[in-house]
């Protein structure tokens, strides 16, 4: 398979809130060897439905197949393929970094530059929160790297058509 043309796509799937629906979708991906980069799922404004956002990478043809195979599942109401360029894409990050008397001001400074939230401060650690696109989150993490990052939690991407 040619990976040069691979792009990232976000599949926005509206699914009936039936048990096992996430398993059905995830199972379909693994069975057909489509790689999931990230997946986010939660109930929508209508409690009968869940919105599932799946980031996949692949060429155009693979993504069209993914779209058609997912659409075929009985519990699926609608699948929209969002190109990264046409959508607002956001991720959420929690980052815990080591803190001491020497670096604590520096840590806060970086957070302020990114308008990140400070969720918790302990004598020896600090937890930050940031929402943004993947690039912003990557550079945020990079800036903290010299200070001994203890833990990172990152959600998959959420996306909405512009």
């Amino acid at each position: 398979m040619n990976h040069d043309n691979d792009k990232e796509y976000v599949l926005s799937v509206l699914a009936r809130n039936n048990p096992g629906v996430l398993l059905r979708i995830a199972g379909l991906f693994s069975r057909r060897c489509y790689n999931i980069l990230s997946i986010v799922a939660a109930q929508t404004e209508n409690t009968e439905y869940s919105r599932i956002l799946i980031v996949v990478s692949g060429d155009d043809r693979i993504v069209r197949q993914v779209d058609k195979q997912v659409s075929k599942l009985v519990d699926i109401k609608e699948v929209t393929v969002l190109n990264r360029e046409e959508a607002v894409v956001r991720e959420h990050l929690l980052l815990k970094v080591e803190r001491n008397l020497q670096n604590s001001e520096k840590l806060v400074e970086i957070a302020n530059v990114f308008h990140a939230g400070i969720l918790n401060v302990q004598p020896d650690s600090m937890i930050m929160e940031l929402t943004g696109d993947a690039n912003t989150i990557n550079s945020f993490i990079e800036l903290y790297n010299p200070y001994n990052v203890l833990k990172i939690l990152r959600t998959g991407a959420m996306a909405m058509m512009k």
Partner: protein
Amino acid sequence: MQLTGAQIIMECLLEQGVDTVFGYPGGAVLNIYDALYEYRNKINHIRTAHEQGAAHAADGYARSTGKTGVCIATSGPGATNLVTGIATAYMDSVPMVAITGNVSCDLLGLDSFQEVDITGITMPVTKHNYLVKNIEDLADTIRKAFLIAGTGRKGPVLVDIPKDVTAQKYEYTPQPPLPAPRGDFPWAERFEQALEMLRTSERPFIYTGGGVIAAEAYGELKKFAELLDAPVSSSLMCQGGYDQTGPRYIGMLGMHGTNTAALAIKNCDLLIAVGTRFSDRVLCNANLFARHCPIIQIEIDTAEFNKNIDVDLKMKGDAREILAHLNGMLSQRQHKLWMEEIAEWKALYPLVQESTSEEEVLPQEVLETLDRLTDSEAILVTEVGQHQMWTAQFYRFRTPRHFVSSGGLGTMGFGLGAAIGAQVANPGKRVINIAGDGSFHMNCNELSTAAQYNIPVIELVFNNQVLGMVRQWQKLFYGGRFSQTTLDRTTNYEMLAQAFGVKAFTISRRSEIEPVLKQALALREPVLINCHINPDVNVLPMVPAGGSVENPILEM
């Protein structure tokens, strides 16, 4: 009307017009079997020797009738025994509803005795499946299961029902089967485009798949082929979708297709593919398939478009409706030169094979004799292997639903169970299971089922003492290193059959072919024929792995 869950299941089956189910009892389905006892005058239950046999029987019932087949199994091992049968139906888009029992709701998820997550296990091999935890949902779930199994691209649906749900009482209100939702129909401009392609083509070629049979499109297909004046080829799954005794039929396309079909695909200027998923067994090398001509694909499942190869015109919808619409628009075409060329190839590359020695029984000749003796009207079921391909090549299927075979999954052990299902569904027809000795050993237990219910299937075992198809590959691609394909079982087939209560015959010489087949066909009880054949007979033509479908090996 207040009924128990088990009774509701029975009523729902009756709503759907189910008259026969195949299954095996057990603890978790005790209530269902108690209801089956109560409804025994309305619903016929066939107890197979193994749940796999029950699933294959439901499948054979469905393939030979077009109705949805039903099988029932208990929780745990009963349910898992169905899995191969369900997967077989899934790969060939056969409508089936599998009902499994499960442990009571309060025991679910506790690794209870005979508990298994069968909905989880069967997710990849069912069109959809359900776990019914509330009695209120039971009737509607079964109705939906039948609707899903039998509409659109058909397939198996599993309904898992905990034991307590089958015992609880609930109000039951009868309901007629749900109407099928209206499917898609191509835009008018697609038809215009198709018509233009059909009108300008000089060498059109129609290639048909199992979808023709599923959509009952054969009448329209016949008309279409005549209007277009084109040759017709088929996949393994479309045997009988077009009359194979007619001059237009040029045999199968693909790995074991005819040379005529190979030449036709090489020389055609338009390919019209109806109800087929372009499986790798047909494309062989996808990059070398139909390179020089545009392709029109008529298909109900959108996901099949551009999956294995790119096509030029996609027409999504029911094959019968689309062909009917095309027939209404298309005026009579004439392709005299092309059809003459086709006829020449057919004459030049026939599939006939006759033995010259009394000592050697050729399977091809046995099948041709069977074709003659049954007027090409029997239902032929197969296992998987060389015998399966010979059956498709040498029996001339004239009508649909007379060839029952596991194409997509290629399930050895499928045939005998499926034959039992097909025979139960078609009591007036002759049903013959063509088996290899390897496949026979996988499910010979079902001979006991045929014997017990006096289901008059003929089990014709092509006994070559080897796993012929695999051995053929070893011969071609592994320098004749026959690793584990020489069976040389000490089984005495005739005695085994008799032990099950089944009459047995033997064919070991050429002159015995016709008299033995006649004798077997004259009986109205299950029969086994042990037919000795040479292990070195090959299935030809054959496209080697990675090769082009245009260049099959004709001799080896």
